[in-house]
């Protein structure tokens, strides 16, 4: 008898404890109307200018809206998605979340984010063109579709080049209206390869997104989607860019193989020293060139290359509202303020990326020839939604299959046929788990 009483007491204690925990979460929702509300804003800004711009905008908002206090929380791209999964599952996520569109796809289908359809002001909606909205429109995991964030910064792949070396080789300097084709680029790279210097350095430590985004130049999508099911595809279109980069490394020998293991910014010292004439990179790398280049170093931004088209796959940096946020209306209002065209121009300048806002893109600071802003901003017109954004399980395919396979291919350890075979068969196995 006493044993049973003791057990009952233990069970009751446990029940009380668990109840205590779960009611703790619910109680907060009750006092919505009373007093000033407070929002947590998880920002991933990391460049100095960008952090300053973010904090300044938050201060501005807090001064103008004393009833909705926004608290700036610093996050980091390195571990933000692990951090968010735990806070979503724990039920206490930040209200306003800075992330990028590849991550949103997964979060949206799991119901972590709020659908913003119909909740955003018309002027913000019309200020951002449809291709950018496409990068944040995802399946909600229940058969419908929704808009799960506001896209505000985009990145295109350009080439940063040493102007003196280009002038010395007497090559044509391209413009956004008449860009280099991949063939022309390969010829020029060969021409620039002399006296121990290479025409180009391909830093391919994380090759997947770069190759997939450029793949669209030849119509390479890497995935076919049939309804909700996705499969990997590596056909002739997909092989173009892979083969061309590989040729530069091992056939033309116009690309430095020792740069392969580098991250995007790592070849910069060699670039300043004239070891490589050209550096394919995202537009944001201009910031580091401006800050670190030795005095007298002349550089230019080369517009995106053209294959059969100039199209590049785009992802966006985004602001979203957590589905568990207690103050979704205030959070949406804050996002609308934070991403109006004036503020987008400030944020884009701080991060050296492209604003999605049409008005912000026409801001004089975004079209100046200084530091290649005109070329960078013009490249935004060729950005289309990256096909892999719609693929459930892309992240796992990328880290388990694509990254090691492409690294091995570019290191010339396997052939293109072998790489394609692995990407498809191993890849489909990974995707199958998500297609269930």
């Amino acid at each position, binding site marked *: 008898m*006493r*044993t049973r009483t003791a057990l009952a007491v*233990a069970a009751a204690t*446990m029940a009380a404890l668990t109840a205590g925990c779960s009611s703790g979460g619910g109680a907060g929702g009750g006092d919505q109307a009373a007093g000033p509300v407070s929002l947590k804003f998880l920002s991933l800004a990391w460049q100095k200018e960008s952090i300053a711009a973010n904090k300044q905008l938050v201060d501005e908002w807090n001064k103008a809206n004393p009833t909705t206090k926004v608290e700036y929380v610093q996050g980091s791209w390195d571990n933000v998605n692990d951090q968010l*999964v735990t806070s979503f599952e724990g039920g206490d996520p930040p209200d306003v979340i800075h992330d990028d569109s590849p991550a949103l796809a997964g979060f949206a289908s799991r119901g972590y984010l709020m659908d913003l359809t119909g909740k955003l002001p018309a002027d913000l909606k019309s200020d951002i063109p449809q291709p950018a909205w496409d990068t944040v429109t995802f399946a909600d995991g229940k058969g419908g579709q929704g808009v799960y964030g506001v896209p505000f910064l985009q990145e295109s792949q350009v080439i940063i080049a040493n102007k003196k070396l280009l002038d010395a080789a007497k090559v044509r300097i391209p413009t956004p209206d008449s860009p280099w084709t991949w063939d022309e680029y390969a010829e020029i790279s060969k021409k620039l390869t002399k006296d121990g210097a290479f025409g180009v350095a391909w830093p391919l430590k994380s090759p997947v997104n770069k190759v997939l985004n450029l793949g669209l130049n030849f119509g390479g999508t890497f995935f076919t989607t049939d309804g909700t099911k996705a499969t990997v595809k590596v056909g002739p279109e997909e092989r173009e860019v892979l083969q061309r980069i590989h040729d530069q490394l091992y056939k033309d020998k116009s690309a430095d193989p020792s740069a392969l293991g580098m991250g995007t910014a790592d070849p910069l010292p060699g670039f300043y020293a004239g070891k490589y004439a050209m550096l394919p990179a995202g537009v944001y790398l201009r910031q580091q060139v401006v800050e670190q280049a030795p005095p007298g170093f002349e550089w230019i931004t080369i517009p995106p290359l053209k294959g059969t088209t100039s199209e590049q796959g785009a992802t966006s940096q985004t602001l979203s509202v957590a589905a568990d946020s207690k103050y979704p209306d205030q959070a949406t209002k804050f996002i609308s303020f934070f991403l109006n065209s004036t503020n987008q121009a400030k944020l884009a300048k701080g991060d050296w990326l492209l604003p999605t806002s049409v008005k912000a893109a026409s801001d004089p600071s975004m079209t100046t020839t200084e530091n290649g802003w005109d070329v960078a901003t013009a490249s935004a017109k060729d950005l289309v939604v990256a096909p892999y954004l719609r693929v459930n399980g892309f*992240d796992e395919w990328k880290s388990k299959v694509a990254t090691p396979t492409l690294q091995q291919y570019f290191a010339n350890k396997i052939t293109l046929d072998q790489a394609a075979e692995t990407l498809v068969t191993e890849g489909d196995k990974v995707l199958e788990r998500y297609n269930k």
Partner: protein
Amino acid sequence: MTLTADRTRKPAADHRGAGKRSRQGRETFVLMLPALVPVLIFSVGPLLYGIFLAFTDARSGRNAVTSFVGLSNFGDLMTDADFWASFRIGLIWAVSVTVLQFLASLGLALLLNEDLRFRSFTRVLVLVPWAMPPVVIGLMWRLVYHPNAGILNSVLTDVGLLDHNIDWLNDFSIALPAVIVVGIWTGMPQTTVVLLAGLQGVPKELYEAGHMDGASTFRRFWSITLPQLRPVIVTITSLDFVWNINQFGLVYVLTQGGPGGQTRLPMLFAYEEAFRYGFFGYAATLGVAFVIVVLAVLGLYIWRQMREAN
């Protein structure tokens, strides 16, 4: 406790004995309850929940529906090439770290057991890595291994052993050995201290006797020190093995399992499955499978050692 209980019960061993025994058991239980509740809530509860999850298809997500799937997770695990790759890496890591750590620590312990100058100071110094949390150790070694600014590359270049910088933690073939070195360094203090304590417990008379009989230094080490240390060695190497195969923080900070999964220890694999890809059920299966593997390996090892000792 059972012994005392037996003894007190003996005189009254008649028809009332059974009733008394169960009352005593109940009293013991009530007395233990305050200690049991936290253990049940914070330790046994989550453990059972984890084991339960292993048999479900639990996924992350607010609209995810969890259902019971029986052993299918275990079936998937058996045929998952990534898991076996990770398992292999885990074994290489745990065995090499444990063995090398043991050898290095034994050497260090023997040295510290000699009558050297500043002996107590050196003994304190040996403990320093123990005082550092794994994350700090990871960050520190990441700086040591840094391809351009790291002290290792610059020292090796100055000495003339290297003519170009090596990216230790991102090279496919060097990353795992580089991480193993850090693992050995991290675990040395515990092992050294335990072995040193064991060495100090070896009776001096044995050495004197060995000396009298003209045994060489090596012979004395082989026939006196090692057999005397055996229980300590068995204990510390098995503990080290369990610690090492469950290592997470250190490697997460150093490489996050990269490059291309070359340092993806089983626990990192489980972490990725759960928190990156959101397959909680599958990750739990992996945890359960690993508990079984570790218990099996340890059981075998300890059983053999015990049998030899007898």
